[in-house]
């Protein structure tokens, strides 16, 4: 029997067409950003030529692009090292944060004991402890991964804790009335409630992890985008500096959007995404 339309009109159409129109919207959204990007590039190029800005101060985009193409092998090789460390650190930091958040959920004592430590870690200036981590963890990937993990850790912890506890009171009462176990409550309610919060932090952490790996490379690596930046500084090569930075930025953007895609998969229900 069909419902009475006068009293029960659905808010929106079936799920499928909503997704399609959403994707079209995103494409339209990108338009202005791309235009602005191109405009900035053109103004930059023209300004450098018109004002005869020396290359060591501000290289023109054409010069930077030429260098990036010419040195692509070297850039990619260093990028690979940085991104590997960044992604591993990101996974480590996020994994620990989520595990701790779940632990805090079931043990208030653990939360009271460990949360101040989490805050303390957050407040340590990364650049200051990077050399120390090199001493403690040895050289190579380990300190880079550690620093990337440290940077990701806190936002994800805070957000996930909040998300896990964000199930509304009446839903919790419902689960209590039907006698759901803590595991069932977690699986059916808390997990999904937390996902939007965790993804919000995950998106922010992604770029922070790459920066963390680069910072680690300033003081204790012989390969990576950070070492290219140091080298460029020693050789006063501003073009190389820009090339390195742009390369890592592009990779970070790619990482960010992979997480956005993953988010889209995981947050499949309507109005789930906290759109940035």
């Amino acid at each position, binding site marked *: 029997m069909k419902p009475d339309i006068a*009293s029960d009109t659905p*808010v929106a159409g079936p*799920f499928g067409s909503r997704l399609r129109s959403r994707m079209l919207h995103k494409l339209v959204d990108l338009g202005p950003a791309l235009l602005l990007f191109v405009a900035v590039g053109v103004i930059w190029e023209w300004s450098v030529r018109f004002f005869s800005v020396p290359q060591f101060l501000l290289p023109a985009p054409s010069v930077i692009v030429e260098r990036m193409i010419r040195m692509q092998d070297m850039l990619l090789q260093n990028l690979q090292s940085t991104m590997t460390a960044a992604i591993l650190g990101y996974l480590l930091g996020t994994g620990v944060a989520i595990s701790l958040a779940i632990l805090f959920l079931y043990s208030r004592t653990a939360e009271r004991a460990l949360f101040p430590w989490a805050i303390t870690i957050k407040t340590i200036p990364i650049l200051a402890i990077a050399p120390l981590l090199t001493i403690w963890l040895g050289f190579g990937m380990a300190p880079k991964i550690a620093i990337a993990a440290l940077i990701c850790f806190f936002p994800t912890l805070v957000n996930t804790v909040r998300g896990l506890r964000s199930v509304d009171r009446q839903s919790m*009462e419902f689960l209590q009335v039907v006698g759901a176990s803590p595991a069932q409550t977690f699986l059916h309610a808390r997990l999904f409630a937390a996902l939007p919060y965790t993804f919000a932090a995950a998106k922010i952490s992604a770029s922070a992890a790459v920066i963390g790996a680069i910072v680690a490379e300033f003081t204790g690596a012989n390969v990576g985008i950070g070492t290219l930046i140091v080298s460029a500084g020693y050789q006063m090569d501003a073009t190389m500096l820009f090339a390195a930075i742009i390369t890592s930025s592009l990779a970070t953007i790619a990482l960010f959007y992979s997480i956005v895609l993953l988010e889209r998969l995981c947050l499949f*229900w309507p109005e789930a995404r906290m759109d940035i």
Partner: protein
Amino acid sequence: MNASIASATKTGTQAGNLSDAQTGAAAIRIRDVSMNFGTGAARVQALQNIGLDVGRNEFVSIVGRSGCGKSTLLRIISGLIPNESGEIRVMGHEIDAYQRHRRFGFVFQDASLFPWKTAAQNIALPLAILGQGNRAARAARVEALLRLVQLDGFGNHYPAQLSGGMRQRVSIARALAYEPEILLMDEPFGALDEFTRREMHDQLIGIWRNKPMTVVFVTHSLSEALYLSDRIVVMAPRPGRVRAVVDVVHPRASDRAVRQSPEYLAQLNELEALLDEA
């Protein structure tokens, strides 16, 4: 006051009690239940010496102004809040013991469906939690329930895609999924517009007639209570207590003529007066 109505109204602590003959068959028996919140100067007595019986398959409404403790009472009955003092028996058992073999149905003020589950998945959830039946059996039951609340075809919709009324119907279907003996409803239609609410009344009555169960229905709407219930418990606030219990003269009167009869209107006035006196 009309004599027949006067005799239908009992006041005070005896008010909620059924006759001794009926007590043995009571679905819910509440004796001397009190509840306090807060400490020291902020101490509030939410409930004071509540005594009440609800008969099997009886439709009882609890009405009262805000702060009279009606929602608290409902939560005490369902075991969501443990009672500090007094005694509660459900089908003759203590609440914990009762819940071990049968669970309450509870419909909340907000539908409180999980946004990440479709209507069908939300309805199926209690069955999954209670481990009742296999996949196919559950799917069949969900289909039946969707038909019951007149939402067949909407099973794969997410709550965000349903109107308020539809969500509340899913919520009712969910509460009925495991065939509870006792259905507790906490102002379930409060957020709906007038017309939707009237529709829901008739649907609810239809469901209840189809499969009789004990219903305790909390509302602040007198007309709603008068329409739906066998008996109405009037509560007063500060401290929360039972002011009076009224036997409804014409329960579930679908005939408009009856609803405009002097008897009916007199009972409505009496109830209003009781509420005002609190």
